[in-house]
């Protein structure tokens, strides 16, 4: 059932390409803009990375976060609002199957977004390769799981698609701007940077940057991401069981 539901959700996603395009367009365009502006900059303000690496890694994180904060919660809350969730649950579609299928969709969208960004960055800006590709992929995967946990949990509690979209936008913009989505965090007060580093997106971006710059994994960040994933999935499954 889980496999078939996942396959069905992916088919539905492909039939609505506007979702794909619109949700990923914003991060991709902004990334291109910022890389263009700051590629030749470096220094402590950019965490001692080259400007282009700084923003590409930030936006790889954004691709995942936009899905986790907005895409998945809106989709699931929409299902609840329209009665699709009740229809599934009444027929016996299990909560785990719902969580897994939504995670798969989030993963596909995040990978498509990330791939588009990387292709643009390499082709357009000659981006330097990461020190450890495997490490970056592992960090990205941990981020996908963490944000899938957050997204399915939010989707299981938000009463409507509109409410989910509103909260999601707040969470996304609120945290993303703090971690380098806009002005480099280095120009923000120290305490803001300290807090931002512990937000899910802060953790994800740190986890991606460590292997990119040095080849080493950021153990603590990855561990917290996995913990977020576990808690998120558990809460989402419990909540969806009660629908």
């Amino acid at each position, binding site marked *: *059932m889980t496999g*078939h*539901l996942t396959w*069905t959700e992916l*088919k*539905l996603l492909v*039939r*609505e390409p506007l979702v794909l395009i619109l949700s990923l367009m914003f991060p991709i365009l902004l990334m291109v803009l910022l890389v263009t502006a700051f590629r030749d900059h470096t220094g402590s303000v950019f965490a001692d990375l080259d400007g282009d690496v700084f923003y590409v890694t930030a936006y790889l994180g954004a691709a995942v976060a936009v899905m986790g904060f907005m895409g998945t919660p809106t989709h699931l809350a929409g*299902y609840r609002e*329209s*009665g*699709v969730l*009740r*229809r599934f*649950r*009444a*027929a*016996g*579609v299990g909560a785990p199957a719902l969580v897994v299928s939504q995670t798969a969709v989030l993963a596909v969208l995040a990978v498509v977004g990330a791939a588009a960004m990387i292709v643009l960055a390499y082709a357009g800006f000659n981006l330097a390769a990461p020190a450890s590709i495997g490490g970056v992929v592992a960090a990205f995967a941990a981020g996908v799981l963490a944000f899938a946990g957050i997204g399915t949990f939010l989707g299981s509690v938000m009463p409507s698609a509109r409410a989910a979209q509103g909260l999601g936008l707040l969470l996304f913009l609120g945290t993303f701007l703090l971690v380098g989505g806009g002005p480099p965090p280095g120009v923000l007060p120290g305490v803001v940077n300290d807090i931002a580093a512990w937000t899910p997106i802060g953790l994800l971006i740190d986890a991606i940057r460590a292997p990119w710059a040095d080849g080493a994994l950021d153990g603590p960040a990855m561990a917290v991401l996995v913990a977020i994933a576990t808690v998120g999935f558990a809460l989402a499954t419990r909540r969806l069981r009660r629908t």
Partner: protein
Amino acid sequence: MDTVISVDHLRKTYADVVAVDDVSFNVHHGEIFGILGANGAGKTTTVEILQGLRAPTGGRLEVLGLDPHRETDRLRRRLGAQLQASALPDRLRVAEAVRLFGRLHTPRVDVGATLEAWGLDRLRDRPFGVLSGGERQRLFVALALLGDPDIVVLDELTTGLDPTARRATWDVVRQVRAGGTTVVLVTHFMDEAESLCDRVAVMDGGQIVACDTPRGLTARLGGPVTITFDVTGRLDRTTLLAVPGVDSVTIDAAQVTVAGQSVAAAGVAVALAEQGIRPDDYRTRYPTLEDVFLSLTGRPPSGRNRT
């Protein structure tokens, strides 16, 4: 006559709202059991508790020998449901929906045969979002009956359908019962309950106010049978009053109204014929569940559909 559903003193409260208040009833195998009432009476809450979609606040209930709240997954394999406010993803196609829900049953559901049996074959590639109200209901009933459940719950099945689609849907329900499935039919349409149900529980304000066959309810609670006709010339009232079952005779200009029990209907016609009177526009009106509802609750039902 086995009891497939037994409900004892069921109660459901939300904060200070009592949605279901001390409800008790049984449903027998193979019958179409109606739960009839206006919107907000507590009907949907009751059947959702039966299906394990909501938890009861109090009371005992057993469906097919199982506790819906604790054995929900086991129950879901034997109970099909067509929910009141439900939908499928707009772009999900009809055949895909049948295939997806079919996965929940063993043995594997034959998608093609199911589509044909429910007249959905020519709609197989149609997305859910573009189906008409009647087509959606047909699909939902088909989905509810996948895997041959022992009981099927139909909640407001014909709301929003045009008269032809309603009649066609009623035939579907009769077909379902003929196949051996017990049907629990939730409706606010009096004519639907009267036409389809073997027994009806009338709900109002979270309580069951009466439960019997439609005939039993109308005979006991529906008020008199009324016979009206127009007559020219003199009419002997006393002869009519003497007809067995007649309670009253009212004459207003040329129109005569006779009220009484159903046995009076034929007797009045015979009495008129014996007097050599040929009445015009002779009508007999039997009480309906609408009259029953009015007498039980003091209000007309909402959402009347006299088609």
